[in-house]
C-alpha cells in the first residue's frame, strides 16, 4: 500500500509511517512476542506469572491506548471492563462452565454491549468531564458488585482452575489476548477506522464537518477497548483462581495501563507493549526489593514518567537532535 515514508521526525509532532507509529518498533515488539512463547518451557512458575501479568497489562494498555491514545478520550475507568470480564468468567465458572474460550467470548460480548450502553451518555462529555465520569463509573460498578450477593459480594468468587500440568494454558491464552489486541491496534491504525479515531482526537468538530459521525466512532472505539480489556480479565480470573471487587476493580489497575501506554508511546501500535514490559518489569523488581513501600515507588514512577516522557519512548527515539530536542519538551508545558 504505503504512501511515501516520511523522513524521520522533522520536529516534535511528526508522525512516522502513518498513525501506527514507528514500524521498526512494532517489528521489534512482534519479535519480543515470539520470544515470549518460550517462557512456559522453562517450567518456572514464578517467571510464568510475571510474564503473564506483563501480557495482561499489555492487553489492558492496548485497550486504553485505543480510546485514550488514538481517540483522545482519556478514560480513567477502563478497569471496569477488566472487572466485568473477570466476573463474566466467575459467573460462568460458578455455573459449571470451564471453557476458557467461552469466558473470553462472553466477556468480550458483554463488555462491548456495556461500553456501548454506558458510552451513549458518557461519551458526549469532553475532556475532564469524561475522565471523571469514567472514574465514577469504575467506582459505581465496584460498589454495585460489592453489594450483590449473586456475584459473591465482597467475598468474591472462586473459580475452578486447570490442574498443574495444564496450567500454562492460561499463559498462552493471555499471550493470544495480548497478540490480538496488538494486531487489532495495528490494523485499525492503518485503516480508515484509525483515521476516524485520530481525527476525532485532533479536532472533533472539524472531523464532523468532514463526514465523520463522531458519536458512532467513539462508541466503536470504546467498545473495542472494552473487549480487549475484558478479554484480559476473563483470562485472569481462572488463572488467579479467585476474584473479588478489590482485586478486579482496583483503581490502581486503572492507572497502570495508562502509565504504560504513556511510557511506551501514546497513540502508537508498539507503545503499550513496550511500556508494559518496562513498567511491569520495574514494578516486579521493586516489589521484591522494597516489599513494604513499593507502591510508593510506583507513585514516584508515574510522576517521573509524566514529567520526563509525556509522549513516550517510541516518539522520543525518533526525534532528530535526540537529547536536546527532548530536553526542550520538558519545559514546553510550563506556566
Amino acid at each position, binding site marked *: 500500500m504505503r504512501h511515501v515514508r516520511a523522513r524521520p521526525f522533522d520536529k516534535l509532532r511528526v508522525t512516522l509511517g502513518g498513525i501506527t507509529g514507528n514500524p521498526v518498533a512494532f517489528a521489534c515488539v512482534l519479535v519480543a512476542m515470539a520470544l515470549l512463547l518460550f517462557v512456559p518451557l522453562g517450567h518456572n512458575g514464578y517467571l510464568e506469572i510475571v510474564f503473564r501479568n506483563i501480557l495482561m497489562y499489555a492487553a489492558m494498555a492496548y485497550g486504553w491506548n485505543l480510546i485514550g491514545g488514538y481517540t483522545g478520550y482519556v478514560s480513567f475507568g477502563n478497569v471496569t471492563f477488566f472487572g466485568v470480564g473477570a466476573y463474566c468468567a466467575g459467573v460462568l465458572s460458578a455455573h459449571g462452565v470451564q471453557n476458557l474460550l467461552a469466558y473470553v467470548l462472553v466477556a468480550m460480548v458483554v463488555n462491548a454491549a456495556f461500553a456501548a450502553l454506558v458510552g451513549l451518555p458518557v461519551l458526549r462529555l469532553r*475532556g475532564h468531564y469524561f475522565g471523571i465520569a469514567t472514574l465514577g463509573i469504575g467506582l459505581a460498578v465496584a460498589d454495585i458488585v460489592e453489594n450483590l450477593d449473586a456475584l459473591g459480594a465482597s467475598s468474591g468468587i472462586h473459580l475452578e482452575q486447570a490442574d498443574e500440568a495444564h496450567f500454562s494454558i492460561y499463559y498462552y491464552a493471555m499471550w493470544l489476548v495480548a497478540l490480538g489486541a496488538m494486531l487489532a491496534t495495528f490494523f485499525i491504525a492503518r485503516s480508515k477506522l484509525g483515521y476516524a479515531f485520530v481525527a476525532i482526537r485532533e479536532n472533533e468538530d472539524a472531523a464532523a464537518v468532514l463526514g465523520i459521525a463522531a458519536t458512532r466512532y467513539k462508541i466503536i472505539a470504546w467498545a473495542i477497548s472494552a473487549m480487549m480489556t475484558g478479554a484480559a480479565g476473563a483470562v485472569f480470573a481462572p488463572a488467579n483462581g479467585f476474584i473479588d471487587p478489590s482485586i478486579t476493580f482496583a483503581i490502581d489497575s486503572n*492507572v497502570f495501563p*495508562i502509565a504504560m501506554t504513556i511510557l511506551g508511546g501514546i497513540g502508537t501500535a508498539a507503545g503499550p507493549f513496550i511500556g508494559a514490559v518496562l513498567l511491569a518489569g520495574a514494578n516486579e523488581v521493586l516489589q521484591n526489593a522494597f516489599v513494604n513501600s513499593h507502591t510508593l515507588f510506583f507513585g514516584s514512577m508515574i510522576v517521573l514518567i509524566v*514529567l520526563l516522557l509525556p509522549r513516550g519512548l517510541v516518539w522520543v527515539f525518533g526525534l532528530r537532535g535526540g537529547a536536546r530536542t527532548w530536553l526542550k519538551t520538558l519545559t514546553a508545558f510550563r*506556566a
Partner: protein
Amino acid sequence: MQLLAQDLVNGILAGGILAVVALGFSLVWGIMNIINLAHGAFVMLGAYATYQLTKSFGLDPFLTLPLSFVILFALGYVIQRFLINRVARAPILITFLLTFGLSLLVVNVALLIWTGDTRGVTTSYSGANFTLAGVTVPWIKLDTLLAALVITGLMHVWLTRTRTGRAIRATSMDIGAAQLTGVRVRQIYAIVFGLGAGLAGVAGTLISMSYAMTPSMGDPFLIKGFVVCVLGGLGSVQGALIGGLVYGVVEAFATQINVTIGTQSISGSGLQDAIALIVLIIVLIVRPTGIVGKAVV
C-alpha cells in the same frame, strides 16, 4: 415526616463539609484549569494532621483548624511551585496522571506513618446532641456546619476584597491582561494551589471529628467534590456552598432508598459512588453550567 426531616438535617450538616471540600477543588479547577486528583489525599492529610495534633498536644480539634490550613497550604504551595507548575499548561491526561501519581504517593506515605488502622478523633462532647422539633442534631455536626459557613464566607471576602484575591480572579479571567498589570502568574498559581490544599486540610479536620479515618478515606471525597463543583457551578464560592448543601441533602435521601435486584435488596448507603455518578450525569445533561451557572467549558 419525622424521618424526612431528620434526613434533611443530616444532609445539610454533611453538605457543609462537602462545600468546603468542593471549594478548594473548584478554586484550583476554575483558576488553573487543573483537576487535582490528589485533592482527596489532601483532605485525608488534614484529617490526620488533626488526629496527630490532638493526640500529641491534646488540642481541641476545632483549634487545629488554622493549623491544618497552614500545614496543607504550605504543602500545596511547594508542590505546585516545584512539581505541578511544570505541567501547568499540559493536556488533561498529563495533569490527571501527575496528580494521580501524587495522590498515590501521599496515601502511601500516610500508610507508612499511620498504618491502615481505622482511627478517629474524639472529644468530651463528641456524642452530645440536642433535639429540635423531633430532629436530633449532634452538636459537633452543627458546629462543623457553622465552621464551614464561616470559612466559605471568609474565602468569598478574601477573594473579592484583598489585593491578592483580586489578582487571582484577574488571572482566571485573562492571564495576559493580568500579567500586564504586574501579576506574577507563577506566584498566583502557587497560592491558589496552596489555598486549594489548605481548604482540603480544613475539610479534613472537620471530617475527622465526625467520621472514622483511614489513609484511603479521600477517594469518595474526590468524586463528590467533583460532582458538587459541577452541580453548584464551577469557580464560584456560592456555587460550592449551594452545591454542597444540595448534594448533601440529595445523598441523605438517596441513601435511604432500597434498591431491589433479583432477590436481594441493596441499601442506598452502599451505593454512594453510584449516586454521585448519577447526579453528575443528570446535571451535565440538564444544566451543565450548574445551579449558580457560570460558563463552563
